[in-house]
């Protein structure tokens, strides 16, 4: 198993949680969508935290590259956090259109971001880090912090 494989799989898991949250929101089932949205948000934010606190610093230390791909990925994480907040605000106000618009934008950004990571950044990390960091443990720890009940 490569260094980043767990993150690769976790992208797919987050996609599924996103689809559930979006569908519930668009059907106007606000109670269900609040629950499924919270699951999606916690998993996605734990994913970002693992990358920003575990993977990227290790990559930057190993390569000396601090201004390139990892900086771009951090910027996109910030964009996605903003869209998550917009979805959350729309949920609170039960604004179906605002929720759908923020969800559509987040999905496009998230998919593009994931492909860049999976095609470019993760292979670079796998080559330079070669199992010197335990990304899976990092992700597990952050997921436990995010949702202690389910962990």
């Amino acid at each position, binding site marked *: 198993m490569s260094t980043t494989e767990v993150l690769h799989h976790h992208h797919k898991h987050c*996609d*599924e949680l*996103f*689809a559930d949250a*979006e*569908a519930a929101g*668009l059907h106007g089932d606000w109670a269900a969508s609040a629950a499924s949205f919270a699951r999606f948000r916690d998993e996605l934010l734990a994913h970002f935290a693992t990358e920003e606190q575990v993977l990227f610093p290790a990559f930057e230390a190993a390569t000396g590259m601090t*201004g*390139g*791909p990892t*900086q*771009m990925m*951090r*910027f996109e994480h*910030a*964009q996605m956090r*903003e*869209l998550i907040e*917009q979805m959350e605000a729309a949920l609170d106000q039960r604004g179906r*259109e*605002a929720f*759908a*618009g*923020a969800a*559509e*934008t987040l*999905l*496009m*950004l998230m*998919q*593009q971001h994931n*492909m*860049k990571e999976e*095609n*470019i950044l993760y292979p670079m990390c796998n080559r330079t880090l070669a199992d010197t960091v335990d990304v899976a443990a990092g992700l597990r720890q952050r997921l436990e912090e995010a949702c202690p009940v389910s962990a």
Partner: protein
Amino acid sequence: MHPNMSFEQAPPISVPYRFFLTAPLFGIAAGLLLALTGADALGSRWTGEALALTHLMVAGFMLQAMCGALLQFIPVAAGGNIWRPSLVAGVVHPALIVGVVLLVSGFLAVPGSAFVAGAGLIVAALSGYVAVVGFALFRAPVQSATIVALRVAVLALVVTYGLGFTLAQGLRGSYGVSLIEVTHVHAAWGLGGWSLLLLSGVSYYVVPMFQLTPPYPVWLGRLLPWGLLAVLLVWATQLLRPASEAYSWVLLAGLLLAGTFAAVTLRLQARRRRRVPDVTLTFFRGGMASLLAIVAAGIAVALAPTFAGSQRGALLIGMLALVGLFVSVITGMLYKIVPFLNWLHLQRLGGLTVLPPNMKQMIPERAMVGQMRLHFAALAALLVAVAWPPLTSVAGLLFAASCAWLEWNLLSGVRVYLDFRDRIRAADACHAP
């Protein structure tokens, strides 16, 4: 300060948009030409009007959209750097417009020197384009089914315009080429090579992304480019040897490959994880259904050459391919790409402090759905007009109207972009020391 963008060399927004906004204009011209010429245009695929209509669609509508999309797509999907995209777009875009207008005028009048000049201009513009895009594709760091498909697609584009130039010389009587066989090979490489492979390469990337479908199977990504290339090469041997019935089997093999792509795409979309109504999805499904209908009609023509005199069969296949398949999928993708590029560029312009409108606020959903209904109504009318020619003018007008509505929808997206960009600039000016 925004982070260094070197990880993603996306071109300025004006690069793809000038192509996207030009494409529907050629569709409007094609619809109006069909309405004006009426049933005469569809007497055969070989009339000057039919050839003019075909080239307004393939070298006008489709080529504009495809050239613009590829300049945007290669850096994002493949990590390939396009050499000076603004310069390339600034030269290729106007040259293609003028070239296609001259070419189409030549088909409608007597092919004269302007006709060959038009063909020459297209060849020159596309040669420059292929040099830049081909270089980026061959140096792309990402190796994927998408890249393989795009590489073979670009090769097929070169064969297409090379043969097209030969045909332009031949139509003027400059030298003796067997026009019918060269046309068969030219059309097959253009539609089955360049267009279909480009569509497949882009689909491998966007279909799972837009709808959260499972990924395309690995075997399809290998089979399609090499299978189609082999079929197209064998098909091209009719330039060297007398036509025989064996070519029907070659055509059949190509159609089955294309049908496999359509079937797999529909199957993946049926298994999509994202279950919300989506205009792009409906356009894509309409396109794939058209491709399956082409396969069925093509099999009928290939196995029973007497099928409705074959002339109508060819026209039917042409309508299904140009309007049913390619205009549908291109429109569907434009309705996703334009809102997303708007958002992305505005977001980068405003940083994380000024929030741009979300994607659904860029082009009104109702306008997209309305335009889509008109598009499919126009397609239905065009297909009926092949069998019942009195409907031709109405079908032409419907198609022109649907392209005009598409243009209007794209322009309303651009207006949102420009308004918001001006607001960001005004806010920046206020905060400047």
